């Protein structure tokens, strides 16, 4: 029971942050699952991808109604993205959790620095 509440609350915090800052859920969700829920890096990433599906879908639905999606660009991006992920999702299973955590750490440090120095929106 405590675990369920903790998980719901973690999701809530991750959602608030991503809604507030416009960052994707994964960058918040993965560290939360690793540090607070105690999951392994690989499982945390798999779950993060699952959670991203309904979250992105509901966001895309609203933006589709506002006619903001460029479907032609989306098609070619998705073509490349699906090919890319079919390679890396398989490859990543062979990477030891320790190294994967380090790669993830470098990625979020980079993202953090980018956010610190981001130009303010006009």
């Amino acid at each position, binding site marked *: 029971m405590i675990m369920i509440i903790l998980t719901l609350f973690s999701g809530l915090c991750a959602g608030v942050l991503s809604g507030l800052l416009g960052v994707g859920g994964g960058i918040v969700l993965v560290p939360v699952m690793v540090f607070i829920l105690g999951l392994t890096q690989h499982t945390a990433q798999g779950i993060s991808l699952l959670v991203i599906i309904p979250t992105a879908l509901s966001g*895309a639905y609203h933006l589709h109604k506002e006619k903001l999606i460029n479907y032609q660009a989306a098609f070619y991006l998705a073509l490349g993205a699906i090919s890319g992920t079919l390679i890396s999702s398989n490859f990543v299973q062979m990477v030891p959790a320790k190294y994967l955590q380090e790669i*993830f750490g470098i990625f979020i440090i980079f993202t953090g620095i980018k956010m610190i120095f981001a130009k303010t929106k006009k």
Partner: protein
Amino acid sequence: MGKKSKLTIGGFFAGILSGLLGVGGGIIMVPIMISYFNLSQHQAHATSLAVIVPTAIASSIIYGFHGQLDMSVAMNLAIGSIIGAAIGAKTMKKIPAAQLKRMFGVLLVLVGIRMISL
């Protein structure tokens, strides 16, 4: 190189990142669309979400094949996350987002350092 192949290559790198790190890949796609294809910030954000849906489905199927999924944790996180995102998006207009973004950036750097040194 044509616009279509550039988009496909950009998408390819976003996909690599998505599968490797369990994130959406918007961090690569959004700047590409803004800088090279003159989409507005809003259009780029919307389009990246439309790409993330099929990409995340493909990634999670592969992760599922390798047994790296936990449906019940995912369900609870998703419920919390969708409610949270709605709250966050509404509050966004009322607070100074730029400053918050910097603070979150600092937090990410600290968490990242912790992940490297673990």
